[in-house]
């Protein structure tokens, strides 16, 4: 049973709300569709990047395991103790359909590629050099993966939220408003009809009072 007041003011208010809700529904639906389109493109990129990175890391890990097997723990530890290279990321937020996704730009301290070898070559095996260079080869992809995967996660969350809102508007709020509006307009119509009938009745009674139609009719019948 609707709990709204069947008044004209309430009707106007509800009609306004329905218009806003329908407009919001349409906008959110557009937002959801566009987000979904971009998400599906991005997630495919994400998957292929991930596969590539995992493949690269598999090789790197194998190389590191090999390198480690040939050297003592201390040697390896000392080799990586003082890293020459330092990596920094610049984060620029990018707005995609009101989702803020980060974009990473990597800055290394030195531009010299050989600076990834932070050790002298005397005590370490060449396996270690291979391992480090195989890891450096996937680095760019790893950063890209971080960017894309984060974007996917954020967009997925936003899509879920938007979808819920669209559904709530479509299946709960809009039907409820329509039902209330219908109830009020029916009630108002009914009130109008009952007033009309009452007026007609009153008019009849007043005419009867003034002209005594019934009595005249009876007299005529008797006479």
């Amino acid at each position, binding site marked *: 049973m609707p709990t709204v007041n069947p008044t004209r003011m309430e009707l106007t208010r509800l009609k306004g709300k329905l218009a806003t809700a329908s407009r919001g529904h349409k906008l959110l639906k557009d937002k959801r569709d566009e987000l979904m389109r971009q998400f599906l493109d991005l997630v495919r990129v994400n*998957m292929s990047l991930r596969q590539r990175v*995992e493949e690269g890391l598999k090789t790197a890990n194998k190389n590191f395991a090999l390198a480690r097997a040939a050297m003592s723990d201390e040697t390896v530890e000392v080799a*990586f103790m003082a890293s020459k290279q330092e990596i920094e990321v610049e984060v620029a937020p990018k707005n995609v359909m009101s989702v803020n996704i*980060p974009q990473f730009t990597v800055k290394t301290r030195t531009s010299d590629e050989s600076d990834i070898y932070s050790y002298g070559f005397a005590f370490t095996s060449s396996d270690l050099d291979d391992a480090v260079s195989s890891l450096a080869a996937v680095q760019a992809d*790893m950063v890209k993966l971080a960017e894309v995967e984060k974007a996917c996660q954020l967009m997925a*969350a936003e899509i879920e939220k938007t979808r819920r809102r669209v559904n709530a508007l479509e299946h709960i709020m809009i039907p409820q408003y329509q039902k209330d509006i219908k109830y009020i307009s029916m009630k108002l119509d009914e009130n109008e009809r009952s007033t009309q009938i009452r007026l007609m009745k009153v008019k009849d009674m007043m005419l009867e009072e003034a002209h005594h139609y019934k009595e005249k009719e009876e007299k005529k019948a008797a006479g």
Partner: protein
Amino acid sequence: MYRMAVLGDKDSIYGYAALGMEVCPVTDDAQASRKLRELAEGDYAVIYITEALAERIPGEVNRYREQMLPAIIQIPGVYGNTGAGVANVRKSVEQAVGSDILFSNN
């Protein structure tokens, strides 16, 4: 300016030091959770975590899922690929679409 970090068991991650990333070797779960939180709250934009470790502290890893920073990315460790990273991508698809329509066949 933000930095990058790698979290996991020592054998899997020691090489990343050569690239200039911050290497955080951890052994037990409590220590790992604490370290991850410390990194996430600090100025680290990207945190790579081994799949094996991420599996042990899923709560901490998922806590930052819907925040812009940091990006916590799972990588395979030296003990093999558990497939958790790929599963994570599928999870995004499931969350967005409702079911995994893209990668369910491979």
